[in-house]
């Protein structure tokens, strides 16, 4: 009888999933917000590791010693170590810019940091009247992002005017803005690589009275009218929900777009550019830029 009991306990122990959460650096506010929201939302037990001050060998040893069933990585550094040392494990990731460029496994799951293009266009449409054509400058790094925008725009009867560049010298912002009502600034590594080029984009847009929609609120100080970015705490909650679904053996999409947005609006810029705003009945703005 005792033997059976011990055997059952052993089976339960073996089947219980151990979960490890690794934060690349808990002092980075966006990582911290995500981690805190995950902690508040996830109902099960998990171990936690901040690798910001750990050496490569220390991380390796920890991962091999712990050897968890499920790992949740926050940020690129944590993801890369997990991929390198324990890629056979079930991995959930978040807070990685351009995740598509990193090595990956089919059984990896996670939440992207880029919002769905249709989500961004819907937000803009709910706020601004008479903006139907959107210019986008991009390099080969962002071809898929622009394709997604083109598809979403078609469904909403909008137009995307793309300008593909090889280097920042190829940007002709006057030409692009003369063919569009506005500009969507995407996180293309070439386009945003030079501060002066960015300043010139904003200066030209202001001169031509065309609004810029950016992906981060940092661009509001340059003159963007609206920033639509991902809401970090929601990512933490979304991962908690994904892990729960995985444990409950419920279907879910492996790679998901973020469900929460954070929208900051600069009303002063909208007034200067004389942008006609809709009397929107659904709240989209989280913050007004002062």
């Amino acid at each position, binding site marked *: 009888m005792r033997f059976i009991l011990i055997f059952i306990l052993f089976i339960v122990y073996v089947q219980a999933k151990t979960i490890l959460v690794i934060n690349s650096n808990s002092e980075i506010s966006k990582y911290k917000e995500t981690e805190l929201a995950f902690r508040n939302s996830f109902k099960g037990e998990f171990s936690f590791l901040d690798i910001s001050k750990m050496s490569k060998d220390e991380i390796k040893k920890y991962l091999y010693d712990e050897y968890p069933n499920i790992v949740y990585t926050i940020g690129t550094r944590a993801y890369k170590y997990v991929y390198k040392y324990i890629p056979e494990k079930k991995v959930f990731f978040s807070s990685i810019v351009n995740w598509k460029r990193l090595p990956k496994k089919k059984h990896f799951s996670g939440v992207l940091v880029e919002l769905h293009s249709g989500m961004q266009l819907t937000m803009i449409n709910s706020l601004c009247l008479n903006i139907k054509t959107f210019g986008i400058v991009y390099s080969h790094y962002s071809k898929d992002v622009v394709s997604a925008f083109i598809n979403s725009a078609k469904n909403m009867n909008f137009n995307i005017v793309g300008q593909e560049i090889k280097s920042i010298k190829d940007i002709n912002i006057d030409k692009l803005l003369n063919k569009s009502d506005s500009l969507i600034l995407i996180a293309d590594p070439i386009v945003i690589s030079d501060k002066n080029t960015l300043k010139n984009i904003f200066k030209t847009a202001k001169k031509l009275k065309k609004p810029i929609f950016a992906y981060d609120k940092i661009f509001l100080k340059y003159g963007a009218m609206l920033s639509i970015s991902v809401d970090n705490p929601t990512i933490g*909650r979304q991962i908690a*929900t994904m892990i729960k679904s995985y444990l409950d053996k419920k279907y879910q999409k492996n790679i998901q777009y*973020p469900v929460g947005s954070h929208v900051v609006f600069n009303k002063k810029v909208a007034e200067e550019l004389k942008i006609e705003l809709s009397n929107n009945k659904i709240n989209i703005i989280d913050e007004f830029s002062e």
Partner: protein
Amino acid sequence: MKIIFLSILLLTTLFAQSVKVCFYTIENNIKNFKSLKFKFDKYLSKYGDYEFQAFSDKSTFEKYINNNNVILILSSTHYKNIIKTKKFKAKFIALKNNKIKDIEVIIGKKNRELDGVITSAHSEKYTKNLLKGIDKKLSILVVPKEIDALMSVGFGMSDFAVVSKGSFINIQEINGFLTKDLRIYNELNSTYRIVIALAIQDFKNKNISNIFEDMQNSENGQYILYTLGIDRFIQLKVEDLRYLGGIK
């Protein structure tokens, strides 16, 4: 004599306690209380010694309002509960799309079993209450705004969303393509929107009435209304106040 009078006046001014406009509701998932307080205090300063105070904890809110000079902004359900023991009378109610009540609905793609992830812009606690008796298989995922909840279903990141019926109608106007495959699964209870309750002695205070009835006429007031997700505040009618328990 004049000096004594002025001294008394000065002391009274110095030690006078400002009236606190106390805010607590789990219906709104407001993250930026700092910005709301800044705008509210700026708006209130036009009307005298008032100060906005937001609470994130129900029991702290209920303890605080016992012993202080306060005006309450709270959910109609919460008001209905506290009115049994506290001496406040609801005077104003939020209006949106010309309605003082709203119906929460569950939205999902056509022909789905009510299972999986449901997004909500309300707190988890409030959402659980809303979903009582519906289904236990749904996992709640809290998102910042109703538009996020709706789009997450439309773009396939979640299975269902619980939102106000008004928001669903609005997004149908904004993006018809997104919503063409969505339908209403359940209509939940219709509830009154948030209310403003005053201490009995303040009920006829004209200054307080002006604070809340004129909000839509100033920029700071508009910001507050927008953040609360409403169009304006109006006076409650007697029959509505009776329903909420404000008239015995």
